């Protein structure tokens, strides 16, 4: 085993240590120290990840096993790490972007009291720890541990400002919706364990490939498992029908939204499905379902994003929409494309969120873009980086977004032209709402209050440097996966991931490919122009008709409330008010009551009259004698 792999345990361990120090010493540590520890530990694991990455790139993979987490008769689940292309890639994303966001947070959160400052960083470190566990785990159980861990941290960080019950409500919502998915995920794991007798990726996949279609692992099993896993993914990665928690999750601090709800955690679902690609490539039905769900989510979220006014909400819905794209890719069997988009999306979406954070910071907590405008003058760096981010997400060459999105669109085209059409349309929508956001925020005239205007200022270096770095990444990040049609042998990512991800290689003529690219590029440019025309200088307008429908997020939250939340509540009340006291408990008490009632009645046999006593006795005797002599004879 590669020597550098011995260090693998450091990657999650360092953030854990950071968590412990910050968590336990939160009352002693000064802000500098806790910030330093928080960011430093992540830096450390980033460096280790780099080591490991380059040794993976030189072709080494390994499963590093530490101890037996569960060992019973017939089941052994080791606590082991799997180090291969996929996990090492994610390691880099998580630790790298994580580090930048930690740095950013140091300045962003500086108004907090030192103890809650430390609390913030301890949560953040804990999150990174769990996320690393998630991607490092060599079996579904360890993956699930990280899976739930990130859910917990997201819960804690969304509700970070716990005085505000709206935030804590959003936190609960996020955790519970994730739990719904987790249940499906767990059931999938159980199913696999029962069928294959193991939970580790290698053994499971070998077993599945070996016995697929046989009685040991029937087609039904494959469908069930793949479906359950997918449901699990929809919870974590905010797909239909479980996406509504993500926009609410914006209640957390903006860096958190950047790290957890854009760059890393929400992509866990994609990671998990990509991990299980061997199972999925055997489940065509599920794949189709995934592609459609992804597409639907992308479209839905995009339409909603059109009419949002909270800068973070727009980004949140765009995140949902981009995740939809990734699932579309997965569904079309283009796992590499999906992972590619995860990578690029991580760059530019983190960038956008941090940019918005910088804006909010400048506006003194204001998030409504209707109150902004014309900030480009004051916030130069933010503006430029934000613009890059927008271009990247809109998918203009040669920025990163272009390549990944193009790959997805291509795969969709090959898989199902209709999906391609919708996806393309959605891409245009993306460009539209992103530039709407850009124009409303940075162009036109300032619409906020006077003291906000006075307060406007560019954020300090600790915040702008991460922006710049991310902007660079968003520009160049796509060049690791340049399709063959543009440049030969340039698809480094595809070849790097090839051992892990089964790539569907069906050839398409260069002509078509050119056509598709140009189509999307031209479309995007036109959309941007349209947006410019519309929002160059913005005037408040009452939205009506379909737009109104979009503005209210398709009333999905209300729908869920009617269909699920309320019924559960009323059923619970019914049980509490009626079934429990009036039925079950009444039955129990009824027995006791009956006994007492019987006592009350039988008592009257004892009339106190000798005559009646004798009479009863004689009657009894006569009956017995008669029965004995004339019946029982």
């Amino acid at each position, binding site marked *: 085993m590669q020597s550098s792999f011995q260090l693998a345990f450091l990657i999650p361990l360092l953030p854990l240590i950071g968590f412990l120090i910050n968590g336990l010493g939160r009352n002693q540590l000064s802000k500098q120290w806790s910030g330093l520890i928080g960011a430093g530990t992540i830096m450390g694991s980033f460096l280790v990840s780099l080591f490991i990455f380059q040794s993976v790139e030189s072709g080494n993979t390994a499963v590093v096993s530490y101890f037996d987490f569960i060992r019973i008769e017939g089941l052994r689940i080791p606590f082991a790490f799997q180090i291969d292309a996929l996990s090492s890639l994610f390691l880099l994303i998580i630790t790298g972007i994580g580090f930048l966001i930690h740095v950013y947070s140091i300045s962003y959160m500086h108004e907090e009291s030192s103890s809650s400052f430390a609390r913030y960083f301890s949560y953040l470190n804990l999150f990174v720890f769990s996320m690393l566990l998630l991607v490092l785990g060599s079996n579904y159980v360890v993956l699930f541990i990280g899976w739930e861990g990130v859910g917990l941290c997201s819960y804690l960080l969304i509700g970070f400002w716990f005085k505000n019950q709206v935030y804590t409500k959003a936190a609960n919502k996020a955790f519970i919706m994730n739990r719904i998915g987790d249940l499906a995920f767990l059931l999938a794991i159980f199913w696999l364990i029962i069928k294959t007798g193991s939970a580790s990726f290698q053994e499971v996949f070998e077993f599945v490939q070996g016995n697929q279609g046989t009685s040991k692992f029937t087609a039904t099993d494959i469908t069930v498992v793949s479906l359950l896993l997918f449901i699990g993914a929809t919870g974590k990665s905010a797909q239909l029908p479980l996406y509504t928690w993500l926009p609410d999750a914006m209640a957390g601090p903006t860096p958190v939204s950047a790290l957890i709800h854009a760059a890393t955690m929400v992509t866990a679902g994609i990671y998990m499905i990509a991990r299980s690609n061997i199972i999925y490539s055997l489940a065509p039905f599920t794949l189709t379902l995934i592609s459609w769900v992804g597409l639907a989510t992308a479209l839905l979220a995009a339409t909603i994003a059109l009419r949002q006014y909270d800068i973070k909400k727009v980004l949140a819905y765009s995140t949902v929409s981009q995740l939809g794209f990734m699932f579309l890719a997965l569904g079309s069997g283009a796992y590499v494309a999906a992972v590619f988009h995860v990578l690029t999306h991580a760059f530019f979406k983190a960038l956008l969120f941090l940019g918005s954070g910088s804006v909010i910071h400048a506006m003194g907590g204001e998030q409504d873009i209707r109150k902004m405008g014309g900030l480009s003058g004051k916030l130069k760096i933010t503006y430029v980086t934000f613009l890059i981010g927008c271009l990247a997400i809109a998918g203009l060459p040669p920025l990163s977004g272009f390549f990944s999105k193009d790959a997805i669109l291509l795969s969709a085209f090959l898989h199902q032209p209709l999906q391609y059409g919708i996806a393309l349309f959605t891409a245009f929508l993306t460009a539209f709402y992103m530039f709407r956001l850009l124009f409303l925020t940075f162009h036109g005239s300032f619409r906020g209050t006077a003291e906000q205007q006075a307060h406007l200022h560019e954020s300090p270096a600790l915040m702008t440097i991460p922006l710049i770095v991310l902007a660079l990444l968003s520009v160049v990040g796509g060049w690791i996966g340049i399709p063959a049609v543009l440049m030969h042998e340039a698809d480094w990512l595809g070849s790097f991931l090839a051992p892990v991800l089964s790539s569907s290689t069906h050839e398409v003529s260069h002509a078509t490919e050119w056509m598709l690219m140009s189509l999307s590029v031209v479309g995007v440019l036109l959309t941007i122009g349209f947006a410019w025309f519309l929002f160059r200088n913005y005037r408040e307008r009452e939205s009506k008709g379909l737009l109104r429908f979009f503005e209210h997020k398709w009333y999905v939250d209300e729908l869920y409330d009617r269909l699920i939340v309320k019924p559960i509540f009323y059923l619970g009340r019914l049980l509490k008010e009626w079934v429990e006291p009036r039925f079950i408990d009444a039955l129990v008490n009824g027995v*006791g009551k009956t*006994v*007492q009632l*019987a*006592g*009350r009645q*039988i*008592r009257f*046999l*004892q009339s*106190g009259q*000798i005559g009646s*006593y*004798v009479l*009863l*006795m004689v009657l*009894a*005797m006569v009956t*017995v*004698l008669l029965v*004995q*002599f004339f019946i*029982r004879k």
Partner: protein
Amino acid sequence: MNALLVSAILGVLLMLSSVFIKNKSYIHTLALAGLAGLFMLNLAELNGWLLFEIDLKGMLRFDRYALVMNAIMLASLFFYLLLSGRAMEKVGPHYADYLALLFFICAGLFMVTGYASLLILFLGIEVISIPLYILTGSDKRNLKSNEAALKYFLLGSFSTGLLLLGIAFFYGARGNFSATVSVDPTVVGSSLQLASLLLLLFAMSFKVSVAPFHFWTPDVYDGAPTVFTSFMATIVKVALFAAFVRLFEDTFSLQFSIWQPWVAGFVVLTLLIGNLTAVFQQSVKRMLAYSSIAQAGFMLLAVYAINGDSKEGLLLYAASYSLATIGIFAVLSHLQDYTFDGFNGLAKKQPVVAASLAIFFLSLAGIPLTGGFLAKLFMIKAALAYQPWLAIVAVIMAVVSVFYYFRVIQAMYFRSADDQEMMPEFPKSFPILLLVTALLVVLLGIFPETLLGLLYF
């Protein structure tokens, strides 16, 4: 045999003693000494040492079982006198005479436990009943006592009539009064046999207050002076049960199939009526009367299933039930208020008394680690050998009994007394004696072998 004669003599002595000895405590001590002596003599006989050599002419048969039963009764009687002997003084002026009557009754008890001829059974029952009529009515000014006495007397002699008719038929069918197994199976099936069997069944059921012949019990127990109720409800009852068992074990063993269903029916009826009626009572004394009926239902299981278990069980039952009930009545006789509220807050004022009472009631309810539990266990085990459903009815009724027994425990421990001056005053030694009795009950529940060991060694 020793005990029988000596107790009669002691009775006469005590009757005379009232002439010479004026100090009641001396008489009490004398009675206690007498009892101790009787106990010793009984044990001596158990070890085969007899005071007089008399040819019993097959009228009496003091086998081990009878002697052990006697020992139990004597022990219970001893504790009875210890605990509530002095309480008798409150009943009336004729203290020595009450004690004398007790000793006469003792003689009767030994006759019914050891009879080998129905003549002795009859005499024994009468020797028990007639003094009991007197004791029941001994509180002359108290109308309840009078009423109880008359009811007891009329109904009692009525049942005596039944008993005698049964014996007469028996004589007609068998030509003798011997209570041993019938050697001649031909006569077994005859109508006379049947009639005598049933009539004796009725009469005995009446004496041990088994439903539907139980009607006298609540009224008499309620009306009689509490001290004597305690005696009637415990020692007398277990003695008569011993007689009952012997009658159906030996005399009518061949008609087993005939009487067993009837006994089963009586068991169920008794358990139901006894327990259910007790649930609703307001006076603890009357509740105990009904509970004694309920317990009789359990003891009747010993008659129902005549086998080793049931006979041992009856011994355990006799001991634990008598001791517990005697203890409870002893406390009760010191209380002014016989309702459940009379016990309120006793635990705070008299922790030892309350603890002992709690043990007694737990034993009656059949909670493990008390004699009562093992006794019930034996009975249920015996019944299970024949009829599972009978056992199930029995245990369900045992649960019902918790309803009323625990009302006292709740009153003592969980409620507080509304007025303190209602609280009873006990003599100095009383709590200790009570505790000893309670410990005996517990010991019976933990090491029953010590008692059952007497049966066979």
